[in-house]
């Protein structure tokens, strides 16, 4: 039944190449998180705004980001925009797609966190002579980030795994892209993808471990 002979040596020989790909994977994930968090804060404020003109686009973003497959979002950034004459490279399209998805999910995470902080905190800040922006920055935001921290790190893990979808828009330099190329060259499918899976696993484990350490160090209260 099984006449497949494993050839791990070939896979191990390609390890440096794959690890280099993993660096791009991390790069895209980190960038998509940084930009995603920035946009998510704006979206969260927009969704809580009393102005319909701010609320509507923010809500639309969140709805689409959370209720359509991430693969479609990346496709849209690459092939969809291409229909309108806007051509994004695979790297940029993948980054844009994941950032779009991150922003949508993180917006709701932040909004939930904001809701968990009593209004009286803001009031206390204002009564000490702080303007609304200063009170938000010094009192509300740090508390919001603590509540949102672990869910945000979950999204980071999700972002790392989502980068693998880049291969569908021709992304060739990230971990999945590199693995796919090796596979096409050698047909050692199982070995290469198993190696890639282990690398993904180790990366996400490391991220979770690091975030626990950071949380423990940062949130002493």
């Amino acid at each position, binding site marked *: 039944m099984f006449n497949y002979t494993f050839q791990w040596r070939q896979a191990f020989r390609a390890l440096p190449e794959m690890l280099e790909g993993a660096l791009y994977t991390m790069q895209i994930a980190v960038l998509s998180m940084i930009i995603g968090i920035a946009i998510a804060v704006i979206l969260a404020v927009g969704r809580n705004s009393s102005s319909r003109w701010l609320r509507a686009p923010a809500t639309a973003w969140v709805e689409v980001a959370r209720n359509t497959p991430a693969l479609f979002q990346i496709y849209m950034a690459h092939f969809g925009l291409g229909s309108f004459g806007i051509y994004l490279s695979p790297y940029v399209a993948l980054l844009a797609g994941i950032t779009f998805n991150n922003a949508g999910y993180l917006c709701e995470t932040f909004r939930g966190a904001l809701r968990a902080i*009593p209004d*009286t*905190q803001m*009031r*206390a*800040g*204002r*009564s*000490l*002579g*702080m*303007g609304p922006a*200063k009170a938000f920055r*010094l*009192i509300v935001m*740090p*508390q919001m980030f*603590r509540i949102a921290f672990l869910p945000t790190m979950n999204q980071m893990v999700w972002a790392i795994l989502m980068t693998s979808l880049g291969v569908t828009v021709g992304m060739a330099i990230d971990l999945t892209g590199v693995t796919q190329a090796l596979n096409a060259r050698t047909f050692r499918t199982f070995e290469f993808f198993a190696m890639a899976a282990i690398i993904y696993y180790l990366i996400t484990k490391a991220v979770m471990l690091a975030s626990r350490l950071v949380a423990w160090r940062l*949130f*002493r*209260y």
Partner: protein
Amino acid sequence: MIEIENVHKSFGALKVLKGIDLTVDKGEVVSVIGGSGSGKSTLLTCINGLEPIDEGRILVDGTEVHARSTDLNKLRRKIGIVFQQFNAFPHLTVLENVTLAPRKVKGMGRKEAEEIAVRQLEHVGLGDKIKVYPSRLSGGQQQRMAIARALAMSPDYMLFDEVTSALDPQLVGEVLDTLKLLADGGMTMICVTHEMRFAREVSDRVAFFDQGVMAEIGPPEQIFGEAKNEATRKFLSSVR
């Protein structure tokens, strides 16, 4: 001097304040008593501009609180307020809670702000707690920290909004002692309170609020001894 002139305030259809007139002189301690929903607490949040008013005006040292041109952030530096819920900032240590506003609002250096904070915290009996987070403090300690936090801005006026109402009975005394200390030091204070003994012992004048109206005001001996107003007498007999 705080001058409150004919202040009206509604929340939707509910009229909370129906024409309040009250003048509080420098160094004076005025206690405000009355049933819940009588508008006492609302008045305090109007004085520092946290709530807008519908009619009338409030002057603090001649500055109209609700005038469009008034810089409320600047005005609030001289009006400290302490709330029923202590509103400690949970992400900051006790010391950081107290130094935050002096540093970030007044632009004071860290060292100077910490010196002031430590002095205020020692004053309220929390000198040994400066490094801990508020979650480690009892309610009474959190409330005293909130008082120190307001005092660190060296305000000219202090507003206390039922500061002992959320405390366990055995913790009320320590907070009231802090307030007494402050009153003895000559601080101008308006205290909304349910502590009748405190109102009687510490206040220069006691105001009784009833359904949005200041029904009676006078020295404690008058209010607690020979109240002229029927509603005052009724209220006092119900709380004693």
